[in-house]
């Protein structure tokens, strides 16, 4: 409100009062300087000439009930005094907003309808401070919010779901796999041929061991089918199979006593013991089982064992340096949720 306006009004009405009526019908009079601190009241007085008497009391908006009005007037009464220092104002404000959240909300609404921006700012900051740092249950408790979202809606990919430890772990594992994939790819491109060569030599061995045309043929075809599928699988989903193979082969590397037939089954409990991983690994293990089952069905144990041993050596050689750390992680993930240093 401009000073000119004040100058015009003041000489005529000294120490005068403004009449205000709240929505419930009750009327009260308030010192002029205090009431004029609210832009809306000021506007009514100046533009429409209201508020000078009981009959022409200014009708306040519906959101302003008498309790809120008295609070707002307290605020205005303090702040309209020009001499206060900033420090004093701040400490008044801090004391002023100490009230329950219900009243804070009402006050925000009332102040807003009277266009009292500083008070709206003060109350919204206070409400924000209440919300900040609390988890959803606490906030619902404080503000009496209904808990009406379904479980799946809550888990939908919003940023806050990274608070769920399982999903955080998931993200971490994905990130880790992606990195591994990049590393593998570099190694892979150099060694893909090598593996195929290995396969072939093993195939020859097998066919020799198995003996007979039919058998060998049968086995050969089945082996070659598998080989193709394996190659295709590798090309299609190199990460999934390769890395799972790593995961699954590594226990083999350590537990060399483990026989081939037990490969699939043994791995399950080891991985299963870290229950958190199961969510992730379920799909991937399914693939692996499919793969393994085919092996087990077709192969004679010694041949398979030999092949597996060779491959295990291969991978173990490559992953030698990383293995102890990785095993630590897989075991410890079941116990704690601390983010672990995955990549060295």
């Amino acid at each position, binding site marked *: 409100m401009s000073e000119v306006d004040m100058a015009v009004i003041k000489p005529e009405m000294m120490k005068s009062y403004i009449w205000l009526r709240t929505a419930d019908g009750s009327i009260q009079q308030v010192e002029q300087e205090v009431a004029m601190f609210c832009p809306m009241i000021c506007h009514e007085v100046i533009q429409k000439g209201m508020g000078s008497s009981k009959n022409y009391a200014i009708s306040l908006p519906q959101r302003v009930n008498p309790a809120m009005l008295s609070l707002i007037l307290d605020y205005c009464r303090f702040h309209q005094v020009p001499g206060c220092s900033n420090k004093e104002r701040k400490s008044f404000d801090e004391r002023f907003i100490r009230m329950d959240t219900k009243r804070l909300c009402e006050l925000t609404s009332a102040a807003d309808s009277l266009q009292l921006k500083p008070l709206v700012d003060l109350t919204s900051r206070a*409400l924000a401070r209440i919300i900040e740092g*609390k988890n959803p249950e606490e906030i619902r408790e404080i*503000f009496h919010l209904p808990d009406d*979202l379904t479980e799946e809606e809550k888990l939908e990919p919003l940023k806050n779901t990274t608070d769920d430890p399982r999903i955080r772990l998931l993200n971490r594992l994905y990130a880790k796999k992606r990195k591994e994939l990049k590393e593998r790819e570099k190694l892979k491109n150099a060694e893909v041929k090598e593996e195929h060569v290995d396969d072939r030599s093993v195939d020859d061995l097998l066919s020799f061991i198995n003996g007979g045309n039919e058998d060998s043929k049968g086995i050969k075809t089945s082996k070659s089918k598998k080989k193709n599928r394996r190659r295709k699988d590798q090309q299609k989903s190199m990460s999934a199979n390769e890395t799972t193979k790593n995961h699954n082969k590594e226990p083999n590397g350590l537990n060399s006593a483990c026989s081939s037939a037990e490969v699939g089954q043994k791995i399950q409990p080891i991985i299963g013991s870290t229950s958190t991983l199961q969510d992730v690994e379920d799909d991937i293990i399914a693939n692996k089982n499919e793969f393994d089952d085919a092996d087990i069905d077709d192969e004679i144990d010694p041949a398979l064992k030999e092949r597996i041993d060779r491959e295990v050596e291969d991978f173990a050689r490559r992953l030698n340096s990383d293995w102890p750390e990785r095993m630590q992680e897989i075991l410890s993930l079941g116990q704690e949720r601390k983010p672990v240093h995955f990549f060295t």
Partner: protein
Amino acid sequence: MSIVNQSEPPRLPSKTKAELDRISNLPRHLVEQILLHLPIRDLVRTSVLSRTWRYKWATTPYLVFDKQCLNVSSQDQTLIKNKLVNIIDHVLLLHKGPIHKFKLSHRDLLGITDIDRWILYISRSSIKEFILEIWKGQQYMPPSCLFNCQNLIHLELFNCLLKPPLTFKGFKNLRSLDLQHITIIQDVFENLISSCPLLERLTLMNFTGVTHLNIDARNLQFFDVGGNFDDVSFQNTPHLALVSIGLYVNINNDENNAQDSSSKLLRFFVNLPQIQRLEVQNYFLKYLAIGNVPSRLPNPCVDLNYLSICVDFDDLGENTAALCLLRSCPNLQELEMLTRLEKRTTVERSTNFWEDDHWSSQFAHLRLVKVSGISGVKSEMDFIKFLLSNSPLLERLTVKPASPSQDGKWELMKELLRFRRASIYAEVIYLDP
């Protein structure tokens, strides 16, 4: 919301939850106001509170991504980067409505190309305030779409390389520009400043590529610069009121003296009619001392009420320039002198520069003086003596020594005690280092 009557019946024990929940039914702009003050993490978390709150956050016009948005303590850079990219991608996708303020300032965020696509997204939503700080790594070059944001009012960039497209005609609404650790070429810089007609505040720190600061900004009020440059000149800056200039690199005096003897000091003040606060930092006084320093400026700076000078009291040129400044601001109220410690190669002068009778100055309005970094040498004490005897309205002189070492402290204080004071109100306060 229910209206409370004066004569209200006792409250029923079972108030419905809907009545208790006041906050969800506040008008939208009030909810937005509340959410404005929340950090981004808490902001997005409000989406799980209840059905009505699911998307209340999504229309917030302020998006700030700083260290509060990611609290992973891992050392793994890739992991943090991926998380951060993930978070920002998600938030931007789920957001709807205009974005007025966007701040991206996370310690581990490098200048990755993902930022390009975020800037593109933001440039389409009438952004008004854009702050981007690349804390480490090489300089990031913002894409050209940043220069299409004609609604920008405040732009702040840290560690960036600025290369606007050739069609760039300036930011028509820009009022505040803050560029630190940037690389920009001379022409581009001048064009940028002069083509932002509403520019009021300009901060420039640690810049590469600009050697001559030619400032042509008719609405400029605040100018803060620190870095290495050869030259400063103001063309068309009638409203410039606050200036703080720091020259970080010592200039080669001999070289400059040979060239021309026009005073840099004169040139500097020629277009600063309304200056109110001036800070001459680091080696800038040495720059101002180049050329023939007048005894006082032709047009005194009548509005100047605060002056801060970083000076080497043993340098005759700097002393002359400082005195010229002091004599050219008749309404000076607050003065700060920071002593710059240089290697004392010259023998201590036996003459007292500040005592010569030519200078009969009186600081009629000077009330507060602060002198820091002194070590008790004669030239410094001469200045303090000069000041005390010429400031009739002085209220407080604060003296702060440079080094925490104890020797010379008592000598210093004894001398201070002795000095005559023109002002009966003067307090001389000796601060511990």
